[in-house]
């Protein structure tokens, strides 16, 4: 950017460069903040899905339950720690109450999800899995719409992907979700981190 020591003699070219610099840094700031939490969520969730669904496809049902429980705890812990570390970059006095509301929202969504599944009585594990995925994606969409519109869009293709796998390829549904769902989320997270 051209530097003019006296702003009162600024030319239109210099003004244009200054405005472009402002727009560039504002865009970079917005993207940096928006992508910070998004790529961590995507990579952690993607790894959990990749391992969990692959195990579900190939291992015995009684073992799979333990694997999912372990993965959920591990994913939740890693996501929280990394999210907390990222959160230190930008602080807000309104963060505390917001975090409480977010936790309450997810708890209520889980409660509604469990109630829904209990009433609907899914015929098999695949149907129950699809319900869980759709509820999680619904929650992600709500979070994105409330906090950062740029992080909304990825929940929609994942929902479509899950529905397509369930309806079109039921025999390899879990593998489908592992590779396309989990792998896709990891790839997208890495893309946002390094290329966005």
């Amino acid at each position, binding site marked *: *950017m051209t*530097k*003019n020591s006296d*702003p*009162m003699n*600024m*030319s*239109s070219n210099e*003004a*244009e460069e*200054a*405005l472009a*610099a*402002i727009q560039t*840094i*504002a865009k*970079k*700031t*917005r993207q*940096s*903040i928006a992508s910070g939490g998004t790529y961590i969520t995507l990579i952690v969730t993607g790894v959990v899905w990749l391992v969990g669904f692959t195990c579900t496809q190939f291992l015995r049902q009684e073992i799979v339950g333990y694997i999912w429980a372990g993965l959920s705890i591990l994913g939740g812990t890693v996501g929280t720690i990394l999210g907390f570390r990222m959160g*230190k*970059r*930008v*602080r*807000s*006095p*309104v963060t505390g109450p917001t975090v409480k509301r977010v936790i309450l929202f997810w708890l209520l969504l889980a409660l509604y999800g469990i109630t829904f599944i209990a009433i609907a009585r899914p015929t098999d594990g695949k149907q129950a899995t699809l319900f869980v995925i759709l509820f999680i994606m619904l929650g992600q969409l709500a979070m994105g719409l409330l906090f950062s519109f740029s992080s909304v869009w990825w929940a929609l293709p994942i929902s479509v992907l899950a529905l397509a796998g369930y309806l079109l390829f039921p025999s390899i549904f879990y593998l489908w979700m592992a590779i396309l769902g989990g792998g896709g989320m990891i790839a997208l997270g890495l893309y946002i981190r390094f290329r966005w």
Partner: protein
Amino acid sequence: MAELNETIHQPVRLRIMAALVTLEPTDEVDFTYLRDLLEVTDGNLGAHLRKLEEAGYITVNKVFVERKPHTYVSATAAGRRVFQEHVAALESILKRK
């Protein structure tokens, strides 16, 4: 008519203010995050932040997080107003073309 601001006019300070006003008014940003975002050195950023703080355009908040010192920076209401006026002045120069 809006006027250009001599303090904000400097390119690094202009970019600092652009980053800070992009945040929500209640948010503050970590020094190292701002340094990496703007791709400047610690000393350079520190010097420009002092100028902006002296002018009353930003607030520098030094706190301990998990026993480690952190410096958080945010734009003041005056800083936001002056920055918007500076942007309006830049736009009016372009319109004169």
